[in-house]
């Protein structure tokens, strides 16, 4: 028992810090932070909260404009098909009427 007490007393005895301890701590505090490496930067970027913002940025800058362009293209396609068919139909009807009249003239 007394040995244990002695051991504890030795282990927990008060020790004074080295004389330059305060200066070293202050010097470390005044040092500029080290530049993070690209891996550290990537790791920071991939942390969940940042990743969400990256996803939002990708959606806003790439996916939404592509979707808008797709919709515009589909609409242009529908308008084009409609326009061509209207023009073609009117042309075809005129041809048909001309041909019909030609046949009537031949019969007479």
């Amino acid at each position, binding site marked *: 028992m007394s040995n244990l007490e002695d051991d504890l007393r030795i282990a927990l005895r008060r020790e004074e810090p080295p004389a330059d301890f305060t200066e070293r701590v202050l010097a470390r505090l005044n040092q500029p932070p080290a530049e993070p490496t690209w891996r550290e930067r990537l790791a920071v970027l991939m942390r969940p909260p940042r990743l969400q913002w990256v996803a939002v940025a990708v959606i806003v800058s790439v996916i939404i404009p592509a979707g808008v362009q797709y919709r515009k293209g589909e609409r242009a*396609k529908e308008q084009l098909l409609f*326009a061509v068919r209207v023009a073609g*139909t009117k042309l075809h009807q005129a041809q048909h009427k001309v041909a019909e009249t030609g046949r009537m003239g031949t019969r007479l």
Partner: protein
Amino acid sequence: MKILGGFALFVLVGTAGYGQALDLKGLEKLAAKASDSTEVALDGSLLRLGAKFLSADDPDQAKVKKLVAELKGIYVKTYEFAQEGEYAESDLASIRNQLREPGWSRIVGVKSKKDRDNTEIYLKTGGSEPGGLAIVCTNPKELVVVNIVGKIDLDELSELGDLGVPKIDIEKPKSTKPADKKDHD
């Protein structure tokens, strides 16, 4: 039926040159009176964009893609009216004036007394700034004006017309008579 122009069918088979589009703005006021109206204006860039979306696997769309390859613009205005007399011949005056300009020539004029239909086809060819094709169809309750700018095979266009107009939903300008408005479905 009275034929105003004694033009044979083969006259239509050919190509029209390209140039400036007709100014069809004078017709836009008719959209307010029409029970159904569709206005399509596809300039060069929209035409190219739309053509890119046409499927090469669909035979009809493949034909359209080939047909419009050299076009600079397609402009179509169709108006249907609930009653006769809701538009006047004077509404077409500005278009007819443009079609009287040098370079334009009317190749077909078909007037049907029975149906009271009047179809005129104009072609602009030759010169350094040729125009293209214009179709003006009038009926007491319907008005259709088409202007195609660019080189187009009229025979192929007519073949596509033989297939009929597709029933598609085109975003249309708002009419002041929404109650009367019908949609192409």
